């Protein structure tokens, strides 16, 4: 098939009246790593799904080697030499690696009987060529995400993809795995495969790209060379100047009031998802909990809040045991809690912004007396908070679910910060939030620290951890790998996130 040059001309994709992509032109030259940079919701994934035949474009044309093509499904795209690794892996968990790779293009003998040996051989060949170290007979659900991603790449390569689309491939990886992936991308490029790399992480984009195309609100803003500065790229993404560094004052830790000792959470299958964790946080200090997603962060924060079952150990705030108390009691003790998924746990989507702002206080003065609520007070409160937190909403009566991610998060944050707090916990405070709002939310978190509240941040984004933390705790498989001071090098943190202790020994 040789090399493939890919061209998108005037692609538009509308969902109803909303244009996810508008008049996009893009040329991917063969043998290049072409990055699509843009914020969450800018329309990068939609564009790639159009290119991969999953969506039909509303307008525009796709050209492969200067020939117009019409993809009716992913099968057509694959036949044209386009392969895609989706952000959420398209692997059947209960199948083996070989079965996943074979699926859709199965080598068979007479009568459609599978001959998996052929697939196994191909997997081993590719695995050896790129040093993937993938066992064709392993069950996919047993593999770490980094390896699953390689299976996805193998899937594309077995189909002789000449253009490989990687959709936010680093979102689920540790920093080390990310570096390995970037190496693999360079190898693939050297082998003649062109790559479309979708990301919103500036560091990675700058590290591997040959060309960067920035997309904002469904439109191409422009191209940039990889030598462009991070601030320049961020400003292109957001559409206004952004400051990327927080410039926070050094912490002034005072009395230690929040102590967690030997906290253990047992899951239904009998394993400890949080395993004997001990740490403390002083007033006026931010402890950031780092780690790859799914290493016990959710359970840790939920155990402190009191919504997890089978919890042992001790959690004390101002000398008072929180473990075993009902959630309401925990909140009344002065705990502010921003859950990791605002749409599931943080907000009631169909409720108005004003109502969401008093979800924790609706039954108390001044918002209620007896069994009746006082709508005037609720509205007054909403007006003040909308102004204070710069919540961009059509009105206080608009349903919270209709706001953008950043503004929804501001509603949650505003609610949790409007009580007098003795402890503030925020899980993934800026996930799926635009760069502009991130800046604002980070400043608020630091402000809370500066009034003397112990703050615990849980984030899977290492950049955010480094930005906010006064001390950094790293979780791996439910265990605390270590607590290190701010300023610890990225590489050390990355190793810790893979379970290697700060002193170098493996903690696994």
């Amino acid at each position, binding site marked *: 098939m040789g090399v493939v040059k890919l061209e998108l001309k005037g692609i538009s994709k509308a969902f109803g009246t909303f244009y996810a992509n508008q008049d996009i032109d893009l040329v991917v030259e063969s043998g290049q790593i072409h990055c699509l940079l843009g914020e969450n919701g800018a329309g990068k994934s939609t564009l790639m799904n159009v290119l991969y035949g999953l969506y039909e474009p509303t307008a525009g044309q796709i050209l492969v080697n200067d020939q117009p093509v019409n993809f009716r499904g992913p099968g057509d795209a694959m036949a044209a030499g386009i392969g*895609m690794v989706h952000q959420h892996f398209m692997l059947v968990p209960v199948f083996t690696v070989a079965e996943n790779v074979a699926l859709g293009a199965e080598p068979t003998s007479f009568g459609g009987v*599978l001959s998996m040996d052929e697939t196994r051989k191909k997997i081993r060949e590719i695995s050896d060529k790129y040093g993937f170290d993938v066992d064709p007979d392993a069950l996919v659900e047993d593999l770490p995400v980094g390896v699953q991603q390689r299976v996805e790449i193998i899937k594309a390569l077995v189909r002789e993809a000449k253009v490989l689309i990687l959709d936010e491939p680093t979102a689920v990886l540790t920093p080390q795995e990310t570096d390995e992936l970037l190496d693999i991308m360079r190898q693939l490029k050297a082998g003649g495969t062109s790559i479309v790399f979708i990301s919103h992480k500036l560091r990675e984009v700058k590290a591997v790209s040959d060309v960067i195309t920035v997309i904002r609100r469904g439109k191409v803003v422009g191209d940039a060379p990889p030598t462009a500065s991070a601030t320049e790229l961020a400003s292109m993404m957001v559409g206004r100047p952004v400051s990327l560094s927080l410039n926070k004052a050094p912490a002034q830790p005072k009395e230690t009031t929040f102590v967690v000792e030997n906290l253990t959470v047992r899951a239904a299958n009998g394993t400890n998802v949080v395993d004997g964790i001990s740490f403390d946080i002083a007033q006026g200090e931010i402890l950031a909990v780092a780690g790859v997603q799914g290493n016990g962060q959710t359970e840790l924060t939920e155990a402190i809040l009191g919504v997890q079952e089978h919890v042992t150990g001790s959690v004390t705030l101002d000398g008072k045991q929180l473990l075993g108390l009902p959630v309401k009691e925990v909140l009344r003790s002065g705990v502010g809690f921003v859950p990791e998924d605002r749409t599931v746990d943080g907000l009631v989507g169909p409720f108005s912004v004003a109502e969401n702002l008093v979800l924790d206080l609706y039954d108390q003065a001044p918002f209620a007396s007896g069994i009746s609520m006082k709508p005037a007070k609720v509205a007054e409160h909403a007006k003040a908070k909308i102004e204070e937190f710069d919540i961009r909403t059509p009105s206080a009566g608009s349903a919270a679910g209709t706001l953008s991610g950043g503004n929804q998060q501001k509603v949650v944050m505003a609610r949790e910060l409007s009580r007098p707090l003795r402890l503030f916990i925020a899980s993934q405070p800026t996930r799926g939030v635009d760069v502009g709002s991130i800046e604002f939310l980070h400043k608020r978190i630091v402000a809370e620290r500066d009034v003397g509240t112990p703050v615990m941040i849980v984030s899977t984004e290492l950049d955010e951890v480094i930005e906010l933390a006064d001390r950094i705790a790293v979780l791996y498989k439910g265990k605390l790998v270590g607590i290190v001071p701010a300023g610890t090098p990225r590489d050390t943190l990355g190793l810790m996130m893979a379970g290697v202790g700060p002193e170098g020994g493996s903690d696994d």
Partner: protein
Amino acid sequence: MSATTTAPKSGSTALPAFRPSMKVPLSLGILALIALVFFGFLGPDQTAEMKISDAGDAVAVPALMIPGQVGGVVFGILLLAMAAYSIYLWTQGERSPKWLPIAFAVVFVFALLVWIVAGARQPSISLAGLVAGSVTLAVPLVFGSLSGVLCERVGVVNIAIEGQLLGGAFTAALVATMTGSPYIGLIAAAAAGAAVSMVLAVFSIKYLVNQIIVGVVLNVLVSGLTGFLYGTLMVPNKEQFNTPGRLDILPIPLLSDIPIIGPILFEQSIAGYLMYIAVAVVWFGLFKTRWGLRVRAVGEHPQAADTLGINVNATRFWNVTLGGAIAGIGGAVFTLVTIDSFTKDISGGRGFIALAALIFGRWNPIGAFLASLLFGFAYNLQSILGIIGTPVPSQFMAMLPYLVTIFAVAGLVGKSRPPAASGIPYVKG
């Protein structure tokens, strides 16, 4: 509330060390005690005769003679030993091995059988007849559960098995009578089952209607429709519309004379042989062929299948249709093998038992087959024990198949995992 005034609680809240569930050891223990007391100490004093070969068989095997009370005590002690082993394992923090509840169940059922037979007016039973009858009664269940396997493996919950069986039974009787050939009736039954299934497929796949609701509605619809046609068409004109005749029993020479196995495997109608073939073909197809790999992918992760160029909804549609055809053949067994005419609601809830067999068999064709055999056994036991005259009231005996179903599905299955996308419609994007 002021947070600082409360004194810290002492230490940590302790949880007991992790133990596997004590459900299995406990229930085995209770059942063993029941067996020892009721089957043994309070057991009947007649001797139960268990005939292994029938009079006409080429090889004669002497019958088992088991004295009621002594047998009950022996079985009770054996069961207690197994329960004790299970409890011992539990104290060691281990789960009971899988074979233990199965072996326990086999011994318990045998003890129950001895107890009932020894207490009957006529303390004699043919084991060969019992097993062969079980298979016969299991045939519609096997076809029904295979239909369920095909549908659920591809991601569509098929509650309409009952309707497919019933539709097949009615159509088989009608068409076989009108054409004079039960074989044409059998083919028509498959078509009827497929037609019922297509309705399920269109509504659940294209119009995204809740699959459970469509299934339930279909069952009611088919029951009403066949009941109406039976009343207006078949009852007044029995000769014309409801005398299908039976599918011939085609014994395979020599092989059919082997005791016990012979009549089960080699003395069947074409539907019986088709059942064995269908189980083998569906198993091989699902797990060894390209078709099966795609089917399972669609049922587990439809989006993944879609991104690889597999047409999810077409795959679902044709699988559900095929499942319906298979269930239709199962329905024909009622009117072309078991009895030679249709009566209202002849399937009598067997479609739901087939659904249970599918779950008990863990969405595997062979598992579903074995589970169906177990339920067939329960049905047959109920009717045979009625004939020999047991002291157990017949209403209780009639509950047997359903009790077995509940215990099998709730108790012994544990946590089995259905196909991940089962019951969830697929919408692109």
